[in-house]
């Protein structure tokens, strides 16, 4: 993951001169002279994710999707390139189960999982239109996964970390000079983090990632 992150950062920096120079002809609303070379911004995010381990989450939570909340910062370089870091969190309580004949039997024992992804991504923004800025990117995610349940003894609970890749694409809408909102599709793949035990093993599902719709409120230019 570290190597990939470094590569992305380096790639972003290498892109900087060319995109900056390519930027000059585009002078729709914000002229290059008024848009800073480095524009740091902060954001809060809300996302709704459909987990790849669909059957597993459905069995435990009766729902294969979940909501994340988080925050982060991005840096827009010469208007078109961005790098972004973000933290988010998902927590949900379901029940321990037993699977028989493809029927999930609930056991009434609360089970809570927590996902804490930390993501670093970068990409390109298309600044053709004045207020709507489509963008796409790729990145890496490091995720802390915790699973706790009632009546757990030593070694029963789970706390592991893993990493994977993320892809994202969407559009940002500028509402005001320093405020924008964005919506994007965010896909993460976090293989081999589950599937070695529990109901995920029964279903043969090992990926903790998924596809999410993300909404961000962005403060900054």
């Amino acid at each position, binding site marked *: 993951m570290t190597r990939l992150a470094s590569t992305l950062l380096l790639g972003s920096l290498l892109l900087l001169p060319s995109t900056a120079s390519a930027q000059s002809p585009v002078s729709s609303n914000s002229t290059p002279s008024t848009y800073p070379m480095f524009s740091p911004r902060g954001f809060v995010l809300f996302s709704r994710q459909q987990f790849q381990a669909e059957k597993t989450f459905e069995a435990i939570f009766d729902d294969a999707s979940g909501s994340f909340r988080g925050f982060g910062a991005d840096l827009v370089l010469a208007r078109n390139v961005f790098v972004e870091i973000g933290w988010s969190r998902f927590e949900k309580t*379901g029940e321990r189960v*037993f699977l028989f004949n493809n029927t999930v*039997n*609930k*056991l009434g024992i609360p*089970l809570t999982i927590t996902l804490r992804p930390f993501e670093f991504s970068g990409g390109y923004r298309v600044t053709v239109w004045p207020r709507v800025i489509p963008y796409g990117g790729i990145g890496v995610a490091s995720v802390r996964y915790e*699973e706790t349940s009632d*009546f757990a003894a030593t070694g029963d609970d789970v706390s592991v970390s893993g990493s994977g890749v993320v892809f994202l694409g969407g559009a940002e809408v500028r509402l005001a000079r320093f405020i924008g909102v964005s919506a994007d599709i965010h896909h993460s793949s976090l293989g081999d983090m589950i599937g070695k*035990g529990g*109901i995920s093993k029964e279903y043969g599902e090992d990926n903790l990632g998924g596809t999410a719709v993300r909404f961000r409120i962005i403060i900054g230019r």
Partner: protein
Amino acid sequence: MLASAVLAFALVAPGHGQSPESYPILLQDVSAGAVDRGVLPGEGPPPSKGPRVRAERVDRTSAYADRASASGATYMPGRVIVKFRDGMSTSARLSALSSASPTAALTTQKPYANFDTISIDPNEDPEAVARSFASRPDVEYAQAAYRVRPYFVPNDPEYRRQWNMLNIDMERAWDIQPGSSSTVVVAVIDTGIAYQDAIVRYNARGFRVVFSNGTSITYPALGLIDVPFAAAPDLRGTNRFVAPHDFIWENNLPVDLVGHGTHVTGTIGQNTNNGVGTAGIAYNVRIMPVKVIDDVWDLIFGSPNEGTDDTVARGVRYAADNGAKVLNMSIGRSGPPAPVVEDAIKYAVGKGAFVAIAAGNGFEDGNQTEVVAEIASRVQGAVSVAALDQQHTRAYYSTTGPWVELSAPGGSTRVGGEQGTVYQQTYDLSFVETFNLPPAQYHAPRFDMLQIVPFQGTSMATPHVSGVAALLVQQGITDPAAIEAALERFASDRGPAGKDNQTGYGEISARNTLRGLGLSK
């Protein structure tokens, strides 16, 4: 398996299988009550202990009584545990104390402690003080002094003899599901149960004991005798027994005339944590006594029916029709197939009842196929149960075969001696088996003298499975096939790796079965 009290000889008595005439007569449904004779003679009963909720020092004021935090954890007030980083000076520690709490004071570090115990005012919130300490860079960790308690361990004084409960991880299972509830009915298809105080008038006919060498002894008729019965003290309870029925005597008084069914019932549902006797697995369930097996006294008293396939089949159907969710069948036989029993078992499973059947005790007697147990292997929702000893290995007597599906503690005198068997309350057999005495000393039995008695057998193993099945039903797993699958899925593999003819899928693991699966573990 039901062990006959007379192994080396056969009984011949007139009247067995004939009309019961007008006997037995229930003279009264109360009696002088049970005489609890503790454990086996020679063992010596332990000092009696009353129920104990909590031990508390008498000089401790209420300010220091345990308190519960918002998280539900219980802690001792007036105390915080702090681990300062190595090399921190005493003055720095004192400074940390004063910043965390104005009342904090360092106490002398105790032996085997690499941390400090800080005393604070008992009215202060130790969790808040701990958080204050923990936020300091010179503190490794800090926490309140939370109370640590053992897993649920019944206070029944004879529980210490019940290695069988530990072997299936019962204590941690009780934490999850404490004893099921009265909504779950377990039928004990057996010799009856000591469930009722009563005095019953029987006509005890003469009989003859024929030995294998051809000689015989004749015992005189005792005529009309009034026989006292008592409900086992550690089984009885308000509405504890439901829909009792006796298919040997064709009445609703399935009293146990041998003690087998009572012992089996104890493992399933003995009253537990009541400061008396032993513990049972599903100690809150309701018990349905269904008598389908006769023994010597039934014969002497002239019961109209015997414990045959048809009687057993009727008992199974009766239990299913009357709401039992779990059927315990610590019974069996070898020989030709028993389609009538198989049909009944399928009927019961079809009605939503899980059935546990003893795999047989005949390993050293030719290891013949156990007919009733073998049925279980063909019915998803019924299981055959082998017996294990204290060391989790197959008990020497436990019949083997491909029909064996699960195993549970049945005890073995060859591993651990008498202490290696299964203890439960049943009759003091010296008051029951008077037919083993010489004719001159032969006298009427009593069924109101109860005792903690060690038995071994797949009969003793089977109720462990029934008990855990009842807990599973309470957890919400009600499909008999799912119950079987869960018990097998979470069993601890014993004997040869994988499913084998000795222990089936392995020894039941109560805790793992009740806990099921998490998302990733």
